[in-house]
């Protein structure tokens, strides 16, 4: 999913060859999203087949170039305007916790404590990172990290709530 829209986004302003696209998509996915090149090429094949992307030929170093088609642009803009649902179990920890409750997992408390510790560590590290990015003028990256931090804050509050109710 994200690879597809990452490619469409990267091609929005200019043509790219495959490896450039991988780097672009990596950077869109942020600090943790390192995708493998194979994923980019299979996705490109599908996008070509569906005529969202086409190839205008090769660059001066014989690398195949890709460009965005009108259909691809429409598809991207449609996706950008779809609100993202929150109340799904897709987020790993909520899913895991739900499973734990389902089986009356005896070590739920430990699970929550460990998750909390993980969140705190992320908070400390991301806060440091975002300050550095801001001072380097990386406004977009800074804003993305503040968004992640707000999610972490909500998760931390939620774990505290679960723990309070389990006392």
């Amino acid at each position, binding site marked *: 999913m994200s690879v597809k829209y990452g490619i469409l986004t990267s091609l929005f302003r200019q043509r790219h060859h495959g490896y450039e696209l991988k780097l672009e998509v990596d950077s869109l996915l942020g600090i943790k999203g390192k995708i493998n090149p194979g994923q980019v090429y299979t996705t490109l094949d599908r996008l070509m087949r569906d005529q969202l992307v086409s190839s205008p030929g090769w660059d001066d170093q014989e690398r195949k170039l890709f460009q965005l088609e009108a259909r691809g642009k429409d598809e991207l803009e449609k996706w950008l305007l779809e609100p993202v649902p929150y109340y799904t179990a897709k987020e790993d920890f909520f899913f895991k916790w739900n499973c734990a409750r389902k089986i009356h997992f005896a070590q739920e408390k430990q699970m929550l404590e460990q998750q909390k510790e993980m969140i705190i560590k992320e*908070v400390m590290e991301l806060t*440091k990172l975002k300050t550095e990015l801001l001072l380097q003028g990386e406004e977009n990256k800074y804003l993305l990290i503040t968004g992640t931090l707000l999610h972490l804050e909500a998760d931390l509050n939620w774990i505290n709530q679960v723990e309070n109710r389990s006392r």
Partner: protein
Amino acid sequence: MIKVTNLTKEFVQGQERTQVLKGIDLHIEEGEFVAIMGPSGSGKSTLLQLLGGLDVPTKGDIQVDQHFLNKMKERERTIFRRQKLGFIFQNYQLLPTLTVEENIAFPLHADGKLTNEKNKWIHELIASVGLEGLNRKRANLLSGGQQQRVAIARALVNHPAVLLADEPTGNLDRAKAEEILVLLSTFHRRKKQTIVMVTHDIFAAGFADHLILFKDGVIDQVISRKEEDYAKYLANFMA
């Protein structure tokens, strides 16, 4: 540089003596940003007041840049505080009927007339805390976040050796708090401003280089983020 040795503070009310600080040793290097965390009533504000020369210890030494605060006479301490220390508080503590620039200039008046140079510096500060155009606005007409920006500028007007901040974001929502913390962090990184900040909030503490965990009048642990297990310790401490 701040050096504290065997710092003790007792409050006496009638017959009752309460020991609030129970022998604290602490070392803060120049240019560090330190956060102090701990439960309510553990003595964090009391410590900050002592570091800032707003109160005197019962026992022990407090050194700021080689000067012993505890050995100064009251008047000496007041002058030292005005010239070397900056304070910001949770409730801003501005003079409500004075304007932004008058509030910021306030600590300078004790040293005589405002020179052109000082006025220029005040305007620079107003710009660096993001309050351009509000120079002449009265403090009580500003929002909380704006008031705290004025308080930061006022605290920095004398180029203090240390900026002491007692829950500076405690009254602000997350977005406004973020702006204040970013501001403090910018002064820390760009101007090597030494900052000691008390906070309850792990999201604020994350801006600091080191955390001092405080419990019942003693330092429970000093946490450097370079240590492997710091998150585990923090999680336990906050539980």
